[in-house]
């Protein structure tokens, strides 16, 4: 008989989710702020990788959190808050991006822009940041050229570091499909990046 296991970190995360959701339901206005602080970076980065533009990522992030606010009261806890918010982000990006423009437009050249707050790791030195920015541009550009299903799977796995079963839950597909999309996405991305070297 199989034994289901759950990590201590996951237990802690679920407890944290329950506590903040309960407070939100009881009218504690700080609870939503905490949710924003906890997930804003995650949502913004995912939106950025899917949209390829920081401006669109900001709009998408704002809209995603509005959705989260509207539906948080009815969140049933069938998944972690993180998975739920990831799913909202993916669905919202699909919806919005399909209306805004074709999904394979090249990314704008602004990964590390004029604004000082773009990078999340201010501890790195200028040279290191410059190298990271070059790599970041190359990768981000390649990602925007991938077909959407492959892009979503690769971003969730290789940028966000999620496990296959988490990705399957977010994308609402089987783990086998996730495995296939990641492999095909990586292969296409490798070819795209090689062409651009």
């Amino acid at each position, binding site marked *: 008989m199989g034994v289901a296991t759950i990590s201590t970190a996951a237990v802690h995360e679920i407890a944290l989710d329950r506590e903040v959701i309960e407070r939100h339901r009881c009218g504690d206005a700080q609870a939503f702020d905490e949710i924003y602080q906890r997930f804003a970076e995650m949502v913004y980065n995912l939106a950025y990788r899917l949209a390829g533009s920081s401006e669109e990522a900001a709009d998408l992030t704002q809209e995603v959190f509005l959705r989260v606010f509207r539906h948080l009261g009815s969140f049933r806890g069938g998944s972690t808050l993180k998975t739920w918010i990831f799913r909202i982000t993916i669905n919202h990006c699909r919806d919005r991006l399909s209306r805004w423009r074709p999904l394979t437009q090249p990314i704008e050249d602004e*990964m590390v822009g004029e604004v000082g707050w773009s990078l999340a790791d201010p501890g790195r030195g200028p040279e290191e940041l410059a190298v990271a920015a070059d790599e970041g541009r190359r990768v981000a550009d390649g990602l925007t050229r991938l077909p959407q299903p492959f892009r979503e799977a690769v971003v969730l796995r290789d940028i966000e570091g999620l496990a296959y079963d988490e990705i399957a839950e977010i994308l609402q597909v089987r783990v086998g499909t996730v495995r296939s999309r990641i492999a095909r996405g990586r292969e296409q991305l490798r070819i795209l990046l090689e062409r651009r070297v």
Partner: protein
Amino acid sequence: MSFHIRDEMLSAYLDGEIEPARERTIDHHLNSCEECRARLNGMRGLVLELRRAPRLQPPPPLAHQVRQQVMEQAPAGVWESLRALLAGRPLHPAMHSVMAMGLALVLSVSLVRVEREQRLARTVPPATPTSTEEPVTDVQVLLGRVIYRQTTIQLGDIEFVLYDAQGRFVQEGLEGSEPETRVDSRSPEGRAVLTDRTYLGLVLDEGYSVVLSSKDGRTVEVAPPPLRGASSGWAGVHV
């Protein structure tokens, strides 16, 4: 080698997302197949490059925008509850705390104002610039939250910029800029400047500090108010 591992299997192997039995088979194959080893290494390089891609921070004003939009959506519930209360119907339990927060907030604002006036009467040193009337119209009170809309503030003849280290209240065009000096609100200078500006507490939110910096280099950092679990959800600056 007469056969090679499919991309899908190699990719899952790299991620450690494969059954142990199959993993051993692949291990065995890789020991003897240079081509598959090279493909695996290529794949590993790509994944490392993806993982090294820099993480981005959401633009600081975004938190403020999200909060404003959320607040715009929220009042309907409050009015609904008020109507229920006036109609003698039972109130949803969640709304008790919201109502309590609102009342506490009104009391807090009043107390801060009274306290400010008392302090002005007894403690403002002659060198401290006196303020103009509080721009109450710029303060929005909704659901127990207060947002101070303006991003600059005039203290006597000096214009200060509201600058939040966490990025909530940053004047447009000054994003990411660091104040030249910082003065703790507990220091005599900080206290002198803040004595007649206790309502600055209105701009503070849980866990956030605000830095006031003037163009001539005067800077005051306002300590975060006491907070988590505070019954009003907000507290004034204590200087």
